[in-house]
């Protein structure tokens, strides 16, 4: 098990390095001229030269990369070309807000999604199962931004219960803080519920039809024991993997949701920095997202390895 953990951590580190190279390559190499990209096509040559010098764009590529990566690891994420402030605090504050949003949504998706999936599987073929199946089928087809639109139209425009955007810090009071969160959380949860619940359902159905469940029944064990003790732990294993992947998709989903609800998180920062050609902020934001995503996957892998006796006590295949 220890060897497995070490392997995974090394792999993640390598992947992140590769991602940083990718991000760097795309943002500094692809554009024909970065300075023009930032300043616009009508910039004066002197401004362009000044910016190029400031950003160190005339040095060999690999040197630029190492300089950039080195600074990154020391905590210096560069300076926002738009706001002329250091990027690090900007990114980390946004990260905090996003994690709050994603975290709350994730917990709700996990609990409700798995619950629905398990219940539907146990009532396989009956009314509840069909309802859940149809609902999830429709749910998967709805894109995130449309969920947001529907929620805004229904809850903000029509019913007027919730604000359509905004963010209040906790210091403004719990209710003022919580209210603007409800709509974005609802959007994220609706968007991902279907996926998780579907996968849990099919995993549970498959487990319920497995030979060892039949054997447990053949021993005359009460159905409650068969489901909760025998079936669930095996059905949950794949569900955990799905959830971890889903955390990453949630991180992707916040891009749209934060933009619509004007929520000051990492997703909105990414879009903002693209619209304003703020490359340093963009690079930093994307790398932080990749790191979080990788971390989530690592946690999921470790959890899976811990729960799966074959990996914990045997040789990982």
């Amino acid at each position, binding site marked *: 098990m220890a060897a497995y953990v070490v392997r995974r951590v090394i*792999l993640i580190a*390598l*992947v*992140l390095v*590769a*991602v940083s190279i*990718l*991000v760097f390559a*795309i*943002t500094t190499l*692809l*554009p024909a001229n970065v300075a023009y*990209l930032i300043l616009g096509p009508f910039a004066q040559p002197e401004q362009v030269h000044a910016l190029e010098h400031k950003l160190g764009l005339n040095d060999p590529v690999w040197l630029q990369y190492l300089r950039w990566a080195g600074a990154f690891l020391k905590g210096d994420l560069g300076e926002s070309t738009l706001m002329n402030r250091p990027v690090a605090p900007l990114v980390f504050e946004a990260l905090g807000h996003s994690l709050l949003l994603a975290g709350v949504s994730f917990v709700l998706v996990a609990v409700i999604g798995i619950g629905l999936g398990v219940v539907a599987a146990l009532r396989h073929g009956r009314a509840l199962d069909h309802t859940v199946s149809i609902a999830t*089928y*429709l749910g*998967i*087809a*709805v*894109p*995130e*931004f*449309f969920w947001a*639109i*529907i929620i*805004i*139209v229904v809850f*903000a*425009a029509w019913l007027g219960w919730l604000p*359509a955007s905004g963010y209040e810090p906790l210091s403004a009071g719990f209710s003022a803080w919580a209210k603007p969160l409800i709509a974005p959380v609802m959007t994220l949860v609706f968007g991902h519920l279907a996926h998780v619940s579907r996968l849990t359902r099919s995993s549970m159905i498959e487990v319920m039809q497995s030979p060892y469940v039949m054997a447990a029944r053949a021993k005359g064990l009460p159905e409650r024991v068969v489901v909760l003790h025998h079936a669930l732990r095996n059905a949950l294993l794949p569900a955990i993997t799905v959830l971890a992947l889903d955390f*990453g*998709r949630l*991180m*992707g*989903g916040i*891009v*749209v949701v934060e*933009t*619509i609800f004007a929520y000051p998180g990492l997703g909105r920062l*990414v*879009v903002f920095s*693209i*619209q304003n050609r703020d490359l340093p902020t*963009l690079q930093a934001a*994307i790398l932080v*997202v*990749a790191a979080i*995503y*990788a971390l989530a996957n690592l946690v999921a892998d470790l959890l899976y390895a811990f729960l799966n006796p074959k990996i914990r006590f045997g040789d990982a295949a």
Partner: protein
Amino acid sequence: MQLEASRKPLTLQLKVGLAIVGAIVLLGLLAPWVAPHPWDTISMRTRFLAPNATYWFGTDEYGRDVLSRLLMGTRLSLAMGVGATAISLAIGVPIGLASGYFRGWVDEALMRSADVLMAVPPIMLGLLFLAVTPPALWKTALAVGLVYIPQIARLTRSVTLSLAGEDFIQAAKARAETATYILFREILPNAWPPLIVEASLRVSYAILLGSALSFLGLGAQPPSSDWGLMIAEARSFLDRAPWIALAPGAAMCLLVIGINLLGDGARERLDPRLKSRVAT
């Protein structure tokens, strides 16, 4: 992997899926002739009209008929879905085949690269690709195609792996067949059913991602009637004219549902494991 002769009757699922997708494709193709009004004519007199007899889905902030714009946008969405998926397949399938068949360092290198691409959530990767060039819809399709290459490659790889373990591949090796022959004449003909199913579902993902990117301003540009763009433009008017946003959104959901029905129906037909088990 056994494949039954597909002489089973079409399930309801397949029929409904085919009907929906067929209808939408048809409407999209015939849009210029079927649309009741011109999609790009600005008319300030007819702004924000609620759905009525003349304008079935109402009009938008520039007085343009929402339905007509919707129909024209169908082509863009379909093109996005199909185009992006074609790119993913064209690059991803050979990668998966090579990875799954040759194993060894080829497999490692390709799959680690796929890991890198998958380390960033798809929409962010798409944003990254599009961040550095002026937006255009074809670039968006290209970016979406690139973003989904790793998934296609992985699926192809796992299908190839399971096929490569079958004895008829060993039999081919025992005939000293070349790798090219084995990949294209023995493996690929057996691999394409699950790939086709996955590809059809990818089309729906591509449509969703593409319109999300357009929504964020990195895809189609005004005055295009791309569905994502339509919804983005309608955001400011959700309180007084929600239909401008609801119509394209509903259309997108309908298309995606149709494609998913089609894909799932096809998978059930082709997957022998779903037959009921009878103890003897």
